[in-house]
């Protein structure tokens, strides 16, 4: 069964304390892995798409990487405004119209 698992469920960081979020997946025929940011009470906002192992994408303090089994979202020197829930989703197999979501990592950055 296709599955996407995110860890940790919650992460508390001090401002400037770098860390990484993990998204592991067990799917057949990966087409793409997506990272989203979700603020409380709002819809998820697109961050990155990764298509193949070894690929990396960067945006400000965020960097996403992909291997054959997992993806990492690295946060360098985070600021309080980076506090949000980060979701990853996988597009895989013949069900190209469907995406499988992890349950998210809730990040809290303290000033």
């Amino acid at each position, binding site marked *: 069964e296709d599955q996407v698992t995110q860890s940790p469920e919650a992460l508390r960081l001090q401002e400037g304390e770098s860390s990484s979020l993990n998204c592991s997946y067990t799917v057949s025929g990966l087409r793409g892995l997506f990272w989203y940011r979700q603020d409380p*009470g709002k819809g998820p906002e*697109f961050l990155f798409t990764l298509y193949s192992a070894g690929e990396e994408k960067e945006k400000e303090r965020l960097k996403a990487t992909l291997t054959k089994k997992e993806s990492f979202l690295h946060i360098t020197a985070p600021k309080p405004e980076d506090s949000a829930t980060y979701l990853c989703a996988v597009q895989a197999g013949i069900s190209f119209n469907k995406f499988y979501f992890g349950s998210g990592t809730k990040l809290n950055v303290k000033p």
Partner: protein
Amino acid sequence: SQTIHQWPATLVQPVGSPLSLECTVEGTSNPNLYWYRQAAGRGLQLLFYSVGIGQISSEVPQNLSASRPQDRQFILSSKKLLLSDSGFYLCAYTRQGAGSYGYTFGSGTRLTVV
């Protein structure tokens, strides 16, 4: 530009009452449309998706139904709400044949069934 509108933002409904949530997309034709539900502290659960007018696929058998009366309109309905229908409902779309950007989500509807 492409945008997605979803309303209402919040809704409090009694058990047994009907439900209608509406979602419209602008700036793209023949999008794939989706309804998701997000329970508190949990991931997104795919409820319905549609690849064209009148074409609805249901992912989870439950008290809800969906319809697509127009190309860029997607409606989520229920005849009689249950307490378990409470949650955060998200509409989303993807462009046909364009996987680069994944989903674009609406702003969501917080439904509380009392």
